[in-house]
């Protein structure tokens, strides 16, 4: 797998951790409406490896986004184990989850959710500012990440001055700037045309994947399937299969 080549030379004397990046065991989640409870996640068991990009696919309403939210500490599981890089997320208080998200999770959203009144640099700096970085330092680092995603010449542009693909690249820079260990992406190419979507995913794989990071992508877009190392299929709240991607671009 390509992830072996992603280990930086400096890491070669470090002990190799083989524990999964994300470990979910018997995770259930339901939403209550009045006296009725609608189970959305049913006995989810899943392991996501370090250094892999996992695609989470399935029909609408099957629970993909809910699963992503549970992994990211946005939603609480009703029961089960949610372990992300050794942290038992299911045991954290809300304040601890907030801190956990700050330090561990990077987000990429379908609609980018870039703040329209901030420049590209400022948008990318937001997670650092939330983390308490000094403003100037955060901007400096944000510029570096925008450079990485090929937007070094769009630093002071506002989101409305950027194309959809450029906006998603800003969002990718924002998701990575705080160097999170888990990046969760919800339909990252849904608002992009096919070519742009593939370009964005190609760039994303190149910039984001590392041996100490895992990426989970929820998608309906089969054009980006080749960019995943493995594919987990969901149906009706359950994971029905997890398999290596036969069409994986390496």
């Amino acid at each position: 797998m390509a992830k072996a080549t992603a280990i930086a030379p400096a890491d070669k004397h470090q002990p190799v951790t083989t524990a999964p990046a994300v470990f979910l065991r018997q995770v259930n989640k339901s939403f209550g409406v009045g006296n009725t409870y609608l189970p959305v996640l049913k006995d989810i068991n899943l392991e996501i490896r370090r250094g892999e990009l996992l695609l989470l696919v399935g029909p609408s309403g099957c629970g993909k986004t809910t699963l992503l939210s549970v992994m990211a500490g946005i939603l609480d599981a009703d029961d089960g184990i949610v372990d992300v890089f050794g942290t038992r997320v299911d045991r954290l208080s809300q304040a601890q989850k907030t801190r956990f998200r700050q330090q561990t999770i990077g987000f990429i959203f379908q609609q980018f959710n870039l703040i329209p009144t901030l420049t590209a640099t400022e948008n990318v700096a937001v997670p650092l500012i939330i983390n308490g970085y000094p403003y100037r330092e955060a901007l400096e680092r944000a510029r570096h990440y925008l450079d990485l995603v090929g937007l070094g010449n769009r630093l002071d542009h506002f989101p409305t001055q950027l194309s959809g693909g450029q906006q998603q690249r800003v969002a990718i820079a924002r998701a990575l700037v705080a160097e999170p260990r888990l990046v969760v992406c919800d339909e990252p190419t849904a608002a992009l045309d096919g070519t742009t979507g593939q370009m964005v995913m190609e760039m994303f794989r190149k910039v984001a994947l590392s041996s100490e990071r895992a990426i989970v992508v929820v998608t309906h877009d089969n054009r980006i399937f080749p960019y995943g190392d493995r594919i987990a299929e969901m149906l009706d709240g359950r994971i029905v299969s997890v398999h290596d991607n036969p069409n994986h671009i390496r």
Partner: protein
Amino acid sequence: MWRIGLKMLMGDRAKYFTLVGGVSMVVFLFVQQGSVFCGLIGRTAKPVEAIGAPIWVVDRNLQVVDEFKGLLDTDLLRVRSVEGVKWAVPLFIRQAQVRLPSGKFQAVRLVGIDSATLVGRPPRLLEGRIEDLNAPDAVIVGRAEMERLGSPKIGDTFEINDRRARVVGIADVPRDFLSNPYLYTTFERAVQYVPRERKLMNYILAAPKEGYPIEQVLENIRRTTGLAAYDEDGMRWLTMNYYMRNTGIPVNIGISVTLVFLVGMAIIGQTFYAFALQNEKYFGALKAMGASSWKLVGMIVLQSVIVGLIGYGIGAGGGALVGYLGGRGAGKLAFYTPYQLLIIAFVATMLICVLSSLLSIQRVLRLEPAIVFRG
């Protein structure tokens, strides 16, 4: 985070200007209406300031400086005999009718002061000499509303109650609530300018001796003479309280101010709420990225405080400017902005902004970060 909050606020120019404009308008109206109220009520007491004396002795039943309740000549002697009184002089104030050269009549406030001491004379003479008031038929005209007497100059004459009056000076006298021109003359001449009455003197002006606290002297006068006695501030408040109790000014302006407050809160609240709604997904994204609810609340409070401060500055400045422009020179706008009004306006503005942002705060506190995953 505060920088992000400010950029979110100020980056959306239309909403930002609506918010600041709304707050400015509320503050402007609040300061403007409040200042008009203070100006109007303050004007009711202007005769007290226009005459100026440390102690005013009046009939016990007097409610307001514009009432004419006569005193006996013996009252003057009794006041002079009170322990702690340095001097006491009579004062005569009445409404009189001036017949202008055009044949028209104009009501004036006629002030007759003690000819020996000239106590109660106008605060500042713009033209002429105060000593000339003892010349035959001499009157000094107050500049405020002087145009209603045909803007007389020194040497001009007119008639009061069929008697001749000659202008010997122009005084800087504040415009009062009734907005009639002031005419100063001597006590003896003033009583001839009005129809004959049984009691002529209606005020006694006095001063305390050195070493006697004014409160003590006032109490001595009250106890010894059975009359009412006030210091200048007391006399001003006697009059102002009368107008506040017995006229519709506080109610009318109070209704205006209340409406301004409510409408302002509705407009600003609605705009803040729309702002929060519009930014909901961004707040959700910030929450997902690890911003705590309280950080976001802090951001909203900061936004509302900034809007409040800028709106307050513009509104209070605008209100004061209107007052300045309307009240200067021949302007007749009753306008007085005491610092207390500005403090009240500031507190009210901050209250409006914070209350208005409560809706947004409540929404942000209840906001699920999972909202960001809704396409």
